[in-house]
């Protein structure tokens, strides 16, 4: 006797389209499948018991009070990024901008004509390298999140359009920093990192210059272009290398400070 497929049983349990009559006829005859069904019912009922922290009737009001200052700071929908948002990647945006300035200062410091008399710097070269590494790692991580968000953009409304305005804004913000990091990496003799950042720059420019609302077909094309360059994989590799270097640099720093 052919038993009921586990997936069909799941569909049956969730009232999804499946041959219910055939399943019920089989269940009437098969004790083993009835036991399977009982087991599935137990598991799903147990999941129902998972608690969610209670939020009382005033919760909506509390959310509004937290939200209101941020909305007030936004003059109109579809405006550019607001710096005081609470989500981590938005805080990173500020961090990224600061990091880009640090990187710029770093590059300027290396190539600016030097005074004859050395000037005491506030931070050591090692600390500067550490800051730059952390800034590039942060930039790569933010870019990865952008590409992942793009891979998951959803269709909104009934006009078969996908809103990628958030991704577009993120890309616009990342483009300038990317150029600085790429040039810095090249000058510091990091061809691998420079090459990945160069590829990333082209992807960011494509996203930044895309319309804020695209058709699913256009989005697929955009995703294909990203995938064809193996961008996400390259980013993951670079990210893990950078994270390891940041950790090593931090370790060195803490050893030196002991």
């Amino acid at each position, binding site marked *: 006797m052919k038993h009921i497929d586990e997936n069909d049983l799941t569909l049956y349990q969730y009232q999804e389209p499946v041959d219910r009559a055939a399943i019920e006829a089989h269940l009437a005859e098969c004790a083993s499948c009835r036991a399977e069904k009982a087991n599935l019912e137990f598991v799903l009922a147990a999941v129902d*018991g998972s608690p969610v922290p209670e939020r009382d009737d005033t919760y909506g009001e509390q959310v509004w009070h937290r939200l209101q200052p941020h909305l007030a700071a936004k003059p109109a929908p579809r405006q550019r990024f607001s710096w005081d948002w609470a989500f981590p990647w938005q805080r990173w945006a500020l961090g990224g901008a600061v990091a880009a300035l640090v990187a710029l200062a770093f590059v300027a410091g290396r190539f600016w004509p030097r005074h004859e008399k050395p000037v005491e710097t506030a931070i050591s070269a090692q600390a500067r390298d550490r800051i730059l590494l952390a800034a590039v790692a942060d930039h790569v991580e933010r870019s990865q999140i952008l590409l992942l*968000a793009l891979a998951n*953009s959803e269709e*909104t409304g009934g006009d078969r359009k996908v809103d990628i305005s958030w991704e577009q804004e993120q890309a616009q913000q990342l483009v300038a920093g990317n150029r600085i990091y790429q040039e810095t990496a090249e000058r510091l003799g990091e061809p691998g990192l420079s090459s990945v950042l160069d590829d990333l720059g082209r992807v960011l420019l494509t996203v930044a210059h895309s319309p804020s609302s695209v058709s699913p077909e256009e989005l697929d094309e955009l995703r294909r272009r990203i995938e064809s360059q193996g961008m996400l994989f390259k980013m993951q590799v670079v990210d893990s290398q950078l994270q390891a270097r940041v950790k090593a640099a931090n370790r060195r720093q803490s050893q030196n400070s002991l």
Partner: protein
Amino acid sequence: MEQDDGVVVALALAGDSDAFRTLVERHSRAIFRLAYRMTSNEQDAEDVVQETFLRAYKRLKQFESRANFGTWLHRIAVNCALDCMRLRQRHDTGRESIDAVGADGPQPLPAGDPLPDRVLFSAEVQQQIDGVLAGLSPKEKAAFVLRHFEGMSIEEISRTMGLRSEAAKNNIFRAVKKLRKALAPLTSVAG
């Protein structure tokens, strides 16, 4: 009488500052529940609630009055939660993977032992469920939460998550299989 969401959205777009507040107050609890189910973390869920309303505010012009505002908002919340979960996953390297849970599983109770106290048994079941849910991939978890807790059909889930129907289905199947595998030793005792 409570105004329809579509009317309130139209008022918000026309510049009525209290209208968006009404939408926030009306939908916050449902979005928090969804966000918590997906992230399994209270602070992350609060962040997702906030981010959801910020994105909704920003995209309000794109909302079509013939659509359901709650569904539209849920769609935004799911994507905010997915972003949050991916971020969390990347940073949460110490988390026990589902494969580890599946491989070792809960220790089966010795045959012949008396059934444990009901409360302890429930706690054990809950612990296993929490472990499995925490170890699901963001897509598996989102699809399962939307099907199981939000009661969305697979078609709705595929639209919400931007997946093909088969992909949405497979994510749910994988989540259910993992739950069943992790709870197998306990369900055999309970059965």
